[in-house]
């Protein structure tokens, strides 16, 4: 029995050795010959007859091999190894094909992975499908007044309490801060210096709503979120792991957060990155009710200050439509109690007020919304590249298939079965696709990493997984397999059907153009698509250039911006005037420092404060303007020029008359042409407040917030002067508007060590004064173009890829044509055709297809497609002729190059040699 199994095993591994079969057959023949001799034949005749009677020995061997159980498997291995040999023999073809497919597959897998990770992924929480968000927009931070469209996504603390009480459809309803901010944290009883970290203020049921369990310690309870409760915080897992080496004693320990003692109750679970996808997730979670003290945030308890996002878990079986109607009604009731919605106009706005419920499993869709259109565009582009890649592969395989026509004919003539030949070619395609797929995998991994690095520059912990998902890879593999099979087997099938004799006869001598209609159509398609991508890239480059060349009306040379937070360092609003004096003096004492600006925020950063504006003596037009506080040297430090009147001086202090400087757009927006604004008064709407500020100067329109914000009316007030309206309403201790956010240093030369100097200087004033963020002015400006730069770079990358592939495709087909026509060209040259006419003939053929692709398809498609990217371009009205011309010229030039090489080869044909070829 054992022996039986051993035998079977042996035959599975390898067939019977030939000599064994031969010996056996030999015996048979001899034995038969003996019989014949016994019947009276001569030994010679008997031997001959026995051999004849047996039939072919070779055949017996072959038939015996076929009986082997793993015969089929063996032939597959044989086919595969033959395929590998074939592919290695034509290395140029293989490398081109593998690279083409790998880039096509890799680019698509990378983009799809990013789309999957950014747009489609749910929060890592329990049962995300039952989470519902109240609100659908990304309005942020702290808002008041009525929204123009009547749709509200931010709600006040009071609104949240009302909804919690009156909407039992929600099992839990959590509230979270919309504008995630920075805090200064320092661990107690350690040498570590205070660090600026991200913090989010959340409700007590926040973690419970998401169904999360702590990594260690405990998460918040409702009791933590009560006014006057001991200060507690939950630390993120990443923070705990990266900065405290997963030290369990962090839990229960004390941290000084904005100079107040806070106990860490627990560590959030691993992988939880908060309620929204972000490249800078929160490091600390703090209860909402601790915000007024920890962050001196008054809005928490002001009924008409809206600042919270709400996400809740609905009970099973609750229908969304009636719930949305009910929540809208409850929100209106809650709004009705506030002053904003009390007057006649407020009541009108209240009737329009509405909230929209959306699925909450993905969290706040801020990042998703800002990336969606760009990612979708990239998906289209990578799809086009894949299409070009497939066309290329198809062309390469067709060319190869046709070139092997003679080989196939010979094999058919020698008796190979058609199925066997097709199977062989199929195996070749499969091997090629598999290799390409694996190479594509590598490209996909690297590409996803590159994309993430490009999309979130400088981010340390992006909660996005760079590994491509199975579905994505299966899709990409599938596409490449399909292409390979379709275009690898079709020509094989066609040639194997042809009569071998015909095929052999017409082998090399042909006067037809050689390339089939299908091949030429593929070239047309490729050049059309490549043009579309080139034009797209050109439009983006042009747009980015326009953006970069906008006159921002500032000067960034040798300027450094230090963001800091005096509030977090423990200064009260009454103490800041002295602090700012000290900062000015200390920085001026550093050699090389020219100007020291201090301001609430700076040009070209993501910040904007605005308020209603009424000019004294004019009716209230419900207009508003942005405003910034700055010190005496602020305008000089950022390079804003004073056009009329004066800027601020050190005489503008908390005790001097209240003044303001306005920009040109402000003058245009609030005054008639020719009116002199100097000496006029304005303020927030109201009979008293509209006379709060006296305009003493006009400055140019330096770009704040974004380069593209046109006619941005702004006013500037001295760093230390209180706004009279707020001075009438609250004591100085509650006036958080006095806190500065940035120091701008202008030096007389580039100073690489400015960052450490700034740190030391601030720490010397007060150890709690830490640098929240340090950048050169140029870096800060460049950050505002990150997304534009990313999309432009990717577009350029993809269009170069497309150009490369299209050129390669044209080269392949042209050079194939030349090979096919070698003897024809030989005859032509023998009959007197000269070099240039041969080159001309080949080039005409090559350029014709490109020209058709460009003119008949490329330009109209590009024209049509530009409108879809218009919204992402800066100041572009339709197709730019310059871009189109450059794109067409580039493509034509590469097509010419691709055609010229084979054309030159054709012209170098030696007539006598060419005629002998066969």
């Amino acid at each position, binding site marked *: 029995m054992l022996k039986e199994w051993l035998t079977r095993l042996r035959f599975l591994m390898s067939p019977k050795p030939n000599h064994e079969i031969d*010996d056996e057959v030999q*015996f048979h023949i001899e*034995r038969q010959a003996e019989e014949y001799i016994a019947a009276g034949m001569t030994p010679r005749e008997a031997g001959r007859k026995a051999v004849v009677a047996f039939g072919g020995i070779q*055949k*017996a061997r072959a*038939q015996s091999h076929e009986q*082997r*159980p793993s015969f089929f498997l063996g032939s597959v291995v044989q086919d595969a190894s033959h395929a590998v040999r074939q592919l290695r023999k034509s290395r140029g073809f293989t490398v081109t094909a593998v690279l083409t497919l790998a880039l096509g597959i890799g680019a698509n897998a990378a983009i799809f992975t990013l789309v999957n990770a950014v747009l489609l992924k749910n929060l890592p929480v329990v049962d995300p499908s039952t989470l519902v968000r109240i609100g659908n927009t990304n309005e942020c931070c702290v808002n008041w007044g009525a929204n123009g469209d009547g749709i509200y996504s931010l709600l006040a603390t009071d609104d949240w309490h009302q909804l919690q009480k009156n909407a039992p459809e929600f099992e839990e309803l959590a509230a979270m801060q919309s504008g995630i901010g920075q805090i200064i944290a320092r661990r107690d009883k350690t040498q570590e210096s205070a660090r600026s970290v991200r913090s989010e203020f959340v409700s007590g049921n926040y973690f419970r709503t998401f169904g999360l369990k702590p990594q260690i310690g405990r998460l918040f309870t409702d009791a933590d979120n009560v006014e006057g409760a001991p200060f507690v915080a939950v630390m993120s897992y990443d923070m705990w792991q990266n900065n405290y080496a997963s030290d369990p004693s962090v839990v229960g320990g004390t941290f000084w957060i904005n100079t107040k003692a806070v106990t860490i109750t627990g560590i959030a679970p691993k992988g939880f990155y908060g309620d929204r996808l972000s490249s800078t997730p929160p490091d600390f979670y703090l209860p909402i009710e601790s915000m007024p003290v920890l962050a001196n945030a008054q809005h928490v308890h002001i009924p008409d200050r809206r600042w919270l996002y709400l996400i809740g878990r609905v009970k099973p079986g609750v229908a969304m439509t009636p719930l949305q109607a009910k929540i809208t009604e409850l929100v209106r009731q809650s709004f009705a109690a506030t002053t904003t919605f009390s007057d006649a106009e407020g009541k009108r706005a209240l009737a329009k007020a509405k909230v929209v419920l959306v699925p909450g499993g993905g969290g706040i869709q801020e990042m998703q919304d800002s990336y969606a259109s760009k990612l979708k565009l990239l998906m289209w582009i990578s799809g086009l590249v894949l299409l070009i890649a497939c066309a290329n592969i198809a062309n390469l395989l067709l060319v190869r298939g046709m070139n092997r026509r003679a080989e196939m004919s010979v094999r058919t003539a020698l008796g190979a079965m058609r199925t066997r030949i097709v199977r062989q070619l199929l195996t070749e395609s499969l091997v090629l696709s598999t290799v390409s797929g694996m190479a594509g995998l590598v490209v996909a991994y690297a590409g996803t990493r590159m994309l993430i690095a490009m999309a979130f520059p400088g981010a340390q912990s992006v909660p996005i997984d760079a590994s491509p998902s199975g579905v994505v890879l299966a899709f990409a593999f599938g596409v490449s397999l399909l292409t390979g099979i379709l275009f690898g087997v079709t020509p094989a099938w066609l040639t194997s059907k042809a009569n071998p004799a015909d095929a052999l006869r017409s082998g090399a001598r042909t006067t037809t153009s050689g390339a089939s209609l299908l091949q030429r159509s593929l070239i047309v398609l490729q050049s059309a698509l490549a043009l579309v991508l080139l034009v797209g890239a050109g439009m983006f480059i042009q747009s980015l250039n326009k953006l970069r060349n906008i006159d921002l009306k500032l000067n960034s040379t040798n300027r450094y911006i230090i963001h800091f937070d005096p509030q977090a360092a423990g200064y009260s609003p009454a103490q800041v005037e002295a602090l700012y004096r000290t900062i000015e003096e200390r920085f001026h004492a550093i050699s090389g420092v020219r100007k020291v600006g201090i301001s609430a925020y700076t040009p070209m950063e993501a910040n904007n404060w605005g308020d209603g504006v009424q000019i004294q003596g004019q009716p209230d037009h419900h207009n508003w303007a942005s405003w910034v506080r700055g010190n005496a040297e602020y305008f000089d430090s950022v390079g804003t020029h004073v056009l009329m009147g004066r800027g601020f001086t050190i005489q503008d202090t908390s005790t001097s008359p209240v003044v303001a400087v306005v920009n040109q757009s402000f003058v245009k927006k609030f005054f008639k042409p020719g009116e002199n604004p100097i000496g006029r008064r304005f303020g927030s709407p109201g009979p008293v407040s509209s006379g709060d500020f006296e305009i003493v100067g006009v400055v140019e329109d330096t770009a704040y917030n974004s380069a593209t914000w046109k006619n941005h009316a702004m006013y500037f007030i001295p760093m230390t002067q209180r706004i009279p309206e707020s001075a009438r309403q609250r004591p100085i201790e509650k006036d958080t508007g006095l806190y500065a956010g940035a120091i701008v240093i202008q030096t007389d030369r580039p100073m690489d060590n400015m960052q450490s100097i700034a740190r030391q200087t601030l720490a010397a004033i007060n150890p709690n004064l830490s640098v929240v963020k340090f950048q050169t002015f140029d870096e800060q400006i460049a950050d505002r173009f990150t997304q534009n730069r990313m999309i432009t770079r990717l577009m350029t990358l993809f269009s170069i890829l497309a150009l490369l592939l299209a050129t390669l495709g044209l080269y392949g087909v042209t050079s194939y044509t030349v090979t096919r026509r070698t003897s024809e060209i030989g005859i032509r040259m023998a009959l007197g055709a000269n070099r240039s006419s041969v080159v001309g003939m080949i080039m005409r053929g090559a350029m014709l297809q490109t020209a058709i692709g460009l003119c008949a398809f490329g330009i109209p498609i590009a024209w049509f497609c530009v409108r879809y990217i218009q919204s992402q371009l800066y100041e572009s009205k339709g197709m730019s002729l310059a871009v189109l011309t450059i794109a067409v010229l580039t493509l034509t030039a590469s097509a010419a190059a691709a055609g010229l090489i084979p054309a030159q080869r054709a012209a170098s044909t030696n007539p006598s040699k060419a005629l002998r070829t066969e």
Partner: protein
Amino acid sequence: MPTTDLLQGTLDLLILRTLALESMHGWGIAQRIQQMSKDALQIGQGSLYPALHRLEYKGWIQAEWGASENNRKAKFYSLTKTGQKQLQAELEDWGRISTAIALVLK
């Protein structure tokens, strides 16, 4: 001499049946089948050896080198245990089928 084409699979049965008596080399098997069928069944070498090897691959028969009746080295085939079982099963099948066919043809 009229010969009869063998039904698919019948050759396997005949070989197994022949080997059930004693172990034998290929030539002998062919001769024995020819004799027992009174020359009605002549096994072509082209089908004999593939069949033998198929049965060997399947593990129904096993081969050993031995001395032949003319004192030459020859390959002797014999039934394995599985082969014996297989023969039993195939004989039963054959009986059923031939009875059935006979009934139809009657």
